[in-house]
């Protein structure tokens, strides 16, 4: 019975979202009553969807296999966390999670958007209503999660074992918060185009949503990447798989949006471009959802390849993206250009940032879609893999990373490049020194690696240099400058922290790309293998029972250069319900940053165990870098200035205009 309540709540939410969209879009000018209604509708919708999602969680956690979805994707022996994550480890449940987060953001705009004028908020919520009506409809009509089984089976069929992992339990919600959060930016863009109200205040309202979505998307992508690294047993952390690209494209576009919105807020410039990016970012999220969920790509994410669902998603995609860009084309010409600026200025640097990020997005988009388009048009089957993305992406990132440290130093409108170069001289000197040290330690080889290390250090030190300069460290008494350092605005800290994280991430990527080594070999019990100065001895092999799987358990004793011994455990798990194996690699961390990664294969008839060992120098820098970036996002969100965002009309417009022409 309770399952039907969940189904009913979802259908009610569908009705409410339609009413919200239709009433809001028709009467947004009339204010008062309609604004209040739309606001309440958004909140009520969230409550209803939360009830229906809660029902699924109850059914899964109590192993109620009369719910068809639970019977197919859960198992009574699964640990509690995977019973919960099984809810979204399938097509129907994941769509409902998407819907839940969509209406959560709608409700959040309704609750936190008190400062936004009534008409604009009503429009934003109506557009959210259109989106949620479409996705709730998609869920109800093509992906019903509430189908019952009669008679109920005795036991469930288990979640795909590869998904039974803590990383994957939280990866989808994080990623979805990021993906779907950009819907708010999209709705704001559409609302701005409809109402014609596009000014600095608009950017001020949109920025927190952009930063929040970007932060969660960053965490979601990082989590997915770390999961792929330790769970798939391939030792890689990024494969340029179309599914990864699907999440990476909104991230790139969202990063560009986050930066261009600053220009729009502070200087009223780049309006058209910012609106375009807001539409584009969510369009790429939708494209990602389509690529991943339609079954057009074969991957662990494609739960079901039902052509009908794919077509409906494609239709939704076409309507939203097409509609948004038609509206954009109709209205963009009526927007007035904002303040002017010289090429060497904060605005100029941010334009370059956007240029390179947009080009990189385009490169990833083309590489991802080209095989699909070619297949559809000519039937030729090709794949565009890592070589394409590595080449194009790195070429486009190099100039971006070179100019990045200059950005925060540049003043608005026009800046003195020579003076700034002098301020960055310390960072540049440290960069070169650090790169030389790295090469002395590693042993110099001729490769492109120095450029990578230079860039990584440059971005990291550049970010620190910004803080040092602003706190006047070295130019005023020490205590005073330390006090100044901690009283710097949060936005300055957030910028520096995010850029520092980027630099750290680049260092990790470069270090692993050029420094990793591997050894694939066969070992008998008692034999040892050598890699990168480590000695790995195979000491134990046994069979163990697990909760819902059987374990082939292997132990290795790893001795480092100093002779310290540590135990590494690698496992192969065979899941009972599906008889599917998964690999649990044995991973040891050295110095907090480098890892030794041991994956086991099959044994041959003579008892030779195939073992694959990697040494991954400083690999954890990649994820620490992303954590810094996410922390920067949260720091920025905690900034009262940004959160309160009192609407200020750009009164200074005329003054700026006369001054802006430099």
């Amino acid at each position, binding site marked *: 019975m309770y399952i039907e309540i969940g189904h009913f709540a979802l259908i009610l939410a569908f009705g409410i979202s339609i009413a919200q969209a239709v009433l809001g879009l028709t009467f947004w000018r009339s204010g008062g009553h309609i604004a209040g209604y739309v606001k309440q509708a958004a909140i009520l919708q969230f409550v209803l969807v939360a009830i229906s999602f809660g029902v699924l969680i109850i059914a899964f956690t109590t192993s109620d296999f009369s719910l068809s979805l639970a019977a*197919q*994707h859960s198992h009574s022996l699964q640990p509690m966390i995977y019973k919960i994550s099984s809810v979204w480890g*399938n097509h129907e449940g994941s769509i409902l999670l998407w819907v839940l987060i969509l209406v959560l953001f709608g409700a959040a705009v309704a609750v936190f958007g008190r400062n936004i004028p009534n008409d604009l908020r009503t429009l934003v919520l109506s557009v959210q209503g259109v989106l949620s009506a479409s996705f709730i409809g998609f869920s109800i009509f093509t992906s019903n999660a509430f189908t019952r089984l009669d008679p109920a089976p005795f036991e469930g*069929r288990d979640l*795909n074992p*590869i998904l039974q992992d803590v990383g994957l339990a939280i990866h989808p919600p994080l990623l979805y918060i990021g993906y779907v959060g950009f819907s708010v930016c999209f709705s704001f863009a559409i609302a701005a185009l409809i109402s014609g109200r596009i000014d600095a205040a608009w950017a001020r309202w949109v920025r927190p949503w952009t930063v929040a979505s970007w932060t969660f998307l960053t965490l979601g992508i990082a989590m997915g990447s770390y999961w792929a690294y330790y769970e798939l*047993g391939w030792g890689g952390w990024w494969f340029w798989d179309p599914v990864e690209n699907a999440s990476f494209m909104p991230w790139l576009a969202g990063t560009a949006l986050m930066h261009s919105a600053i220009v729009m807020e502070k200087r009223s410039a780049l309006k058209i471009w910012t609106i375009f990016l807001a539409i584009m970012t969510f369009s790429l999220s939708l494209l990602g959802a389509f690529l991943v969920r339609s*079954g057009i790509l*074969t*991957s*662990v994410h494609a*739960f*079901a*390849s*039902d052509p009908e669902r794919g077509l409906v998603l494609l239709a939704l995609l076409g309507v939203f993206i097409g509609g948004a860009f038609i509206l954009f084309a109709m209205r963009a010409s009526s927007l007035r250009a904002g303040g*002017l600026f*010289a*090429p060497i200025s904060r605005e100029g640097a941010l*334009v370059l940032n956007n*240029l390179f990020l947009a*080009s990189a997005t*385009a*490169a990833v988009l*083309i*590489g991802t879609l*080209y*095989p699909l388009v070619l297949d559809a048009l000519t039937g*030729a*089957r*090709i*794949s*565009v*893999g890592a*070589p*394409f993305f590595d*080449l*194009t992406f790195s*070429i*486009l990132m190099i100039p971006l990373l070179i100019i990045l440290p200059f950005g925060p130093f540049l003043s608005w409108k026009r800046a003195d490049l020579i003076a700034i170069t002098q301020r960055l001289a310390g960072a540049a000197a440290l960069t070169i020194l650090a790169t030389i040290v790295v090469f002395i330690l590693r042993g110099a080889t001729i490769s492109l690696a120095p450029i990578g290390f230079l860039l990584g250090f440059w971005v990291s030190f550049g970010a620190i240099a910004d803080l040092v300069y602003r706190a006047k460290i070295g130019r005023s008494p020490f205590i005073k400058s330390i006090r100044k350092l901690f009283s710097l605005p949060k936005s300055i800290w957030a910028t520096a922290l995010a850029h520092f994280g980027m630099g750290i991430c680049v260092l990790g990527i470069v270090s692993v790309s050029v420094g990793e080594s591997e050894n*694939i*070999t*066969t070992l008998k019990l008692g034999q040892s293998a050598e890699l990168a100065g480590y000695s790995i001895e195979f000491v134990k092999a046994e069979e163990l029972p697990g909760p819902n799987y059987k374990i082939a358990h292997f132990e290795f004793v790893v001795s480092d250069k100093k002779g310290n011994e540590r135990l590494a455990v690698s496992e*192969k798990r065979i899941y009972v319900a*599906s008889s*599917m*194996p*998964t*690999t649990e690699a044995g991973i040891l961390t050295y110095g907090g940053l480098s890892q030794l990664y041991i*994956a*086991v*294969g*099959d044994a*041959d008839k003579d008892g*030779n165990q*195939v073992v*694959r060992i990697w040494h991954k120098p400083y690999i954890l820098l990649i994820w620490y870098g992303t954590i810094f970036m996410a922390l920067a996002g949260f720091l920025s969100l905690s900034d009262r200035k940004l959160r309160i965002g009192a609407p200020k009309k750009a009164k200074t417009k005329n003054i700026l205009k006369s001054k802006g*022409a430099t």
Partner: protein
Amino acid sequence: MTRKQKRLAVIAGLGLAIVLAATIIFTALSSKITFFYSPSELKENPVAIGQDFRIGGLVKEDSWVKDGKINTFVVTDGESDTKVVYQQILPDLFREGQGVIAEGALTQEGYFAATNVLAKHDENYLPKEVVATLKERGEWEPETKEENGEGSAN
């Protein structure tokens, strides 16, 4: 420079950058793509030795030989066979009689030296390139499909 000239210079600069980016993307696209062939297609249009491509089909029954870390198996599409040698750990779900895609190149000795082997992520996965090939070759068995269909509702 007047304001107009300045603006033109900026637009020209941005335009140049975009053209450059586009050039890089399309040059890379034409040189860095990998083609996919079935064993029969490979027989009809031989690929040069050392040229990277992907081959896909079913792992032939009783063809998988393990010698330490060296795995040898035969990829078939029902008409033609290709011998594949892979000197790494095969994916967990690699099985005989199931779909597989191998990336690599042909060698002097006439076999396909794989640098990467993709098997399915779960029980219901058959690479779509393989499905298409099998359909073309008339090797697509409805029973398998049904099994898959049931599975994918899963």
